[in-house]
């Protein structure tokens, strides 16, 4: 007891100085400008440079790769890659040991350097990420791959840098499958097309002889399920991107549409329309067993699984108008979650599982928005004349969707384009495609 008192007493005596010694200042504000960083061109020796020039027809593959990185980081809206003209240090020296004062001088807070070499007919890239202000290395990695994969190397580096500087996975080493559109609005020709996330390596997967709609990747990004009007019978199809083989999904006596994969990739969930009503079905791709999930005289469509596969969100007009619902994966516990003004469609569960993205039609305007899975916290990200069908980036930060323009009074000037926007509602961007485009679907990260 006495000891205790002494302690307390001494505490009280020491207290004032101790307490007043440490001043606290709360920093609750900062600037929200993209982080300024410098992407130094990857250095390359003359011999490797010549080899790659022969193989890839690119004059300097080192700077080409750094341009990919720079472009990706810029597009993310989170980084501000600085102009290379201002760089003071040569790439080869910077990669060994950056002179941080120089980079500090141009206000770079992070620096990316690297080296490309040609080793055993392969492309070897090493890169380093530096914290300029702390004057230390944050990350160093090396990749070896076939030279033709050079763009992917750029994307993988971007992903690593993004992850190191933001704390979450990137989304650059990904592809987008979409519907390429051409021709007049009344006789649109539509083809399946696939491209890298940054618009490069565009390829058409169908010839455009029949109408195709709503392609979606499986989780492994090797298969695509989509709607095709082959022989004027609208059915859900399955396409293997590598082999090009196609098959009809299930044997339904009518139109199947709105397909998506389950998160484990083993099932396809879709709508089947018959006698004026559309219900949701699943088909197991291994044993071909078909299950009916909803049974209601209304239109139930646009189903999408939660990432754990336990729930399904879909839209239905059972209340009289198109609204969003959530149910268990066996079709039980159907709950309406959208209660705002207007019509709601195309719900898509986010990869993180906490949000559902949707299209909303209200007073003649179309919105892309997100809400929590119980329907609360609705946020509209963008408003336009017509836009729909959001698809999540694999890290759940960005949505890609398509937007159509109003035609003029002659019925001309129609276009359809892909756009992306951050979950924050900022950083809205046109995604360049060689033709008009719609129905985008984002793949998962290809490297992992």
């Amino acid at each position, binding site marked *: 007891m006495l000891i205790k008192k002494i302690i307390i007493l001494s505490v009280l005596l020491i207290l004032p100085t101790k307490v007043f010694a440490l001043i606290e200042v709360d920093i609750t504000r900062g600037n929200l400008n993209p982080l300024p960083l410098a992407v130094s061109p990857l250095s390359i020796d003359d011999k490797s440079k010549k080899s790659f020039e022969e193989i890839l027809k690119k004059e300097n593959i080192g700077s080409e790769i750094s341009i990919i990185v720079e472009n990706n980081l810029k597009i993310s809206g989170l980084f501000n890659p600085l102009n290379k003209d201002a760089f003071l240090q040569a790439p080869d020296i910077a990669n060994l040991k950056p002179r941080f004062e120089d980079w500090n001088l141009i206000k770079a807070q992070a620096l990316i350097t690297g080296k490309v070499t040609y080793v055993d007919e392969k492309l070897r890239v090493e890169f380093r990420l530096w914290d300029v202000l702390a004057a230390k290395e944050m990350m160093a990695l090396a990749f070896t791959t076939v030279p033709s994969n050079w763009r992917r190397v750029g994307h993988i580096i971007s992903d690593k840098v993004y992850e190191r500087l933001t704390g979450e996975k990137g989304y650059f080493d990904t592809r987008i499958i979409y519907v390429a559109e051409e021709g*007049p*609005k*009344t*006789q*649109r020709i539509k083809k399946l097309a696939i491209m890298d996330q940054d618009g490069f390596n565009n390829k058409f997967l169908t010839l455009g002889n029949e*109408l195709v*709609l*709503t392609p979606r990747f499986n989780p492994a990004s090797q298969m695509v399920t989509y*709607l095709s009007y082959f022989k*004027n019978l*609208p059915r859900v199809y399955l396409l293997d991107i590598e082999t090009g083989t196609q098959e009809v999904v299930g044997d339904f006596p*009518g*139109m199947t*549409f*709105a397909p998506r994969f389950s998160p484990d990739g083993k099932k396809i969930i879709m*709508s089947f*329309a*018959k*006698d*004026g*009503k*559309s219900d949701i079905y699943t088909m197991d791709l291994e044993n071909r067993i078909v299950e009916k999930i909803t049974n209601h005289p209304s*239109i139930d*469509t*646009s189903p999408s699984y939660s990432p754990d596969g336990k729930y399904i969100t879909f*839209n239905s*007009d059972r209340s009289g*108008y*198109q609204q969003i619902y959530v149910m268990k994966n066996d079709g039980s516990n159907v709950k309406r979650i959208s209660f705002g003004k207007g*019509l709601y*469609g*195309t719900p898509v569960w986010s990869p993180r599982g906490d949000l559902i993205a949707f*299209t909303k*039609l209200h007073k*003649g305007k179309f919105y892309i928005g997100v809400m929590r899975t119980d329907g609360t916290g609705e946020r509209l990200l963008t408003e336009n*004349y*017509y836009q*729909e*069908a959001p698809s999540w980036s694999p890290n759940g930060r960005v949505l890609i969707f398509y937007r*159509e323009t*109003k*035609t003029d*009074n002659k*019925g*001309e000037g*129609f276009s359809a384009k892909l756009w992306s926007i951050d979950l924050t509602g900022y950083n809205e961007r046109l995604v360049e495609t060689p033709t008009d485009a*719609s*129905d985008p679907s984002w793949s998962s990260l290809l490297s992992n």
Partner: protein
Amino acid sequence: MILSKIFKNTLVVIVACLVLSACATKKEATIDSIGGQIQGDVYTGTEGVKYLADGVPDRVFFATNESILTTASRETLRAQAAWLRKNSDINVVLEGHADERGTREYNLALGERRANSAKDYLMTYGISSDRISVLSYGKERPIDSGSTPLAWSKNRRSVTVKAN
């Protein structure tokens, strides 16, 4: 002071009433102006309409988000039923369509529903369901590429097409 306030407020209320009622009359006026071709949101014109036979139009039109047949539609379908009874060797496809103001997937289902409501009506007039198939194009095949209420009304349709 208080009295003048009340007076001011009364004025405000009356002005507001007038403004609102002015809006209402204006709206009626605009509906009247295209009333020649649209009635209650349903297209009643003949642009793009083809004829299966003399006096047998090939299509019926719908209101936004609806699949209910109007009186005019029912008349058209009765004519089609009569024509089908006369030509028992002809089978038809009913192609359902929607306008561009809806999400693609929902519109596919809506087109199917519209074609089916036409099919049901034909069946009640004695046409066997074996002779009728249904196909939905959703919003994929508009006949009018315009972005106006009139263009949309032309596109909300179910078209009867000879299958053989």
